């Protein structure tokens, strides 16, 4: 996988996804004295996934603040700080723990501007390491993007590459409203070329990762890579899949997806969150009520997470979320389908 960026001219450097996020935070801390980082063990420990790394040594404990284990309160402090002039980047150690802070994220941050009739704003970023595959079981492996995608007032992104991880984080900081970034834990070590210096990746735009004619596969986060893997296999049999990286769950880039489906006539949505009421449901429904409906040559298919908590056993864990062979099989099924 190569990094695909909005600014292809600039100098790039190989970085991991985690390093790219750290680079974005370092740039933000340099550029804007109101930016602060908050989270559990993001200081000397460097973060549970080593994303903040050495930032506390570079920027000090006033800018890189370890919080007590108080997710609700911590998120609320970030909201209050954002409301009054700081720009916090708040790290949840695992996105699962955001379940403790839904009140501050959803009832306060997301609605504050609206409830106050536009007289105030809450510009902040919640970073949430998400997804399964690390053997951490049911309470440390969830994918909550559908929850936040359902909440007006929030923006929700899921970068799938180091370059996007950096560009979307910097874009989120420029956004005058709260943005939630889901970082997939299995991507933290993925390396790719990343533009140096400051740039932003626009929030709300999907990206065509692989153009194709026969079937559209819309995937998010780690699923983008599994979809690309499946597409390679499909190509060997002459099936030309278009792989779209959703990137943003709220807002969803309707135009890019519709244009692709008009071209291919077939749509497969692949996401890790639980299948029912997951992101694929929205994409499917969006297409089913759009002008692209008339171009559909087959039912819209979804591959999502199993209707189960994430199990501990590694084989069960893998079986609980879409893998490349299942994506490949679903795409074949769609393409085989007679109209």
């Amino acid at each position, binding site marked *: 996988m190569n990094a695909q960026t909005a600014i292809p001219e600039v100098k790039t450097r190989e970085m991991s996804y985690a390093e790219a996020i750290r680079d974005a935070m370092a740039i933000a801390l340099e550029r804007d004295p*109101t930016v*602060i980082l908050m989270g559990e063990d993001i200081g000397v420990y460097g973060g549970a996934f080593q994303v903040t790394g050495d930032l506390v040594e570079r920027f000090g404990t*006033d800018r890189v603040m370890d*919080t*007590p284990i*108080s997710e*609700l*309160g*911590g*998120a*609320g*402090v*970030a*909201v*209050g*700080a*954002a*409301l*009054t*002039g*700081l720009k*916090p980047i708040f790290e949840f150690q695992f996105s699962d723990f955001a379940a403790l802070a839904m*009140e*501050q994220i959803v*009832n*306060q941050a997301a609605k*504050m*501007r*609206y*409830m*106050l*009739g*536009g*007289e*105030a*704003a809450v510009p902040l970023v919640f970073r949430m390491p998400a997804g399964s595959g690390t053997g951490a079981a049911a309470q440390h492996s969830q994918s909550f993007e559908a929850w936040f995608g359902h909440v*007006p*007032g929030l923006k929700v992104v899921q970068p799938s590459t180091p370059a996007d991880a950096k560009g979307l984080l910097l874009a989120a900081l420029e*956004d*005058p*409203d709260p943005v939630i970034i889901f970082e997939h834990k299995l991507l933290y070590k993925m390396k790719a070329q990343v533009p140096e210096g400051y740039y932003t990746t626009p929030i709300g735009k999907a990206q065509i990762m692989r153009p194709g004619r026969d079937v559209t596969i819309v995937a998010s986060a780690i699923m983008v890579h599994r979809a690309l893997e499946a597409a390679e296999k499909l190509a060997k049999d002459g099936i030309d899949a278009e792989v779209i990286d959703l990137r943003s769950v709220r807002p969803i880039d309707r135009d890019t997806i519709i244009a692709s489906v008009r071209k291919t006539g077939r749509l497969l949505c692949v996401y890790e969150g639980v299948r029912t009421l997951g992101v694929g449901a929205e994409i499917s429904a969006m297409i089913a009520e759009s002008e692209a409906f008339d171009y559909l040559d087959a039912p819209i298919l979804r591959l999502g997470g199993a209707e189960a908590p994430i199990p501990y056993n590694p084989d069960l864990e893998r079986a609980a979320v879409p893998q490349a062979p299942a994506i490949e099989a679903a795409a074949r099924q769609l393409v085989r389908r007679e109209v």
Partner: protein
Amino acid sequence: MTMKDKVETAQDNLPFAIRHFSPDALRAALKKMYLIRLFEEGAEDSYTRGLIHGTMHLSIGQEASAVATCMELTDADKITSTHRGHGHCIAKGAEVGRMFAEFFGKETGYCHGRGGSMHIADVKTGNLGANGIVGGGLPIAVGAALTAKRLGRDDVTICFFGDGANNEGAFHEALNMASVWKLPVIFVCENNKYGMSTSIERSTAVRYIADRAVAYSMPGETVDGNDFSAVAEAMHRAIARARAGEGPSLVENLTYRWRGHSKSDRNRYRTKDEIESWMARDPIARFRADLITHGILNDESATALQQAAEADVAQGIEFAKASPAPQITEVTKFVHAEVSA
């Protein structure tokens, strides 16, 4: 009320408020207390007339707590308020006209008709907003104090909350962080004996909320919340501490709401006697009498203040009535910043 209004007197046996604040400031405080009372009576009346939608939580009987707590604050200082927040809003400097307009769902309201009673804010005077979520403002206040500290400003944040709110986890997390980080925030508990129908005894493992301050290594003080001077004095100490960078405090104002919790309350959990005994301790009448005793006012000038407040309220209601409603097509306006829409 700015610090410039304060004067020192030699008569140390006078009540704190009389010693500490200028006569003008004291008179303005009494007027604010009238404004709160009359605003809420006006809101109640408007509700009965069908001008107001939804519910409301009145603070009648708690006016001294709101006004005395905010005495020393400037517009740079912040407050976070509660569902029972009209008093705090007025105490912090809001105009009753725009408050009524918000109640009436009008575009001229503080929240352009989107928020209503439970979300009134007036960011310009430092009121970060009422809150429909019990305890919702507690960590937000800590965040506001963090901003002040990080940006090197000396403003303080006052966090109003109720006795019921003290059992929310948010209370614990907020007070702990404020203390660990020594932030300039003062937690002001308006203890009116009940969270909705549930008394302190049935909900709270301590007698006084301020007894919990020790769990956060901060000073905790319980005062008669209907005694303007007692509240102002406790706040004076807490604010000085906060401005000096010494960290947060917890101040508990014992008071009482005369009205039911909200419009749906049948007052089944308390006695008429109890309500009447507290009505006899009207904080406004008491403060008025104190000011007269100490020669800050006479009966006539006090009545003039009250009448001025009445006129403000009447004008406010007229302003609100005459104001335009939001455009029905603008349901999604203010969800995001215009620029990014």
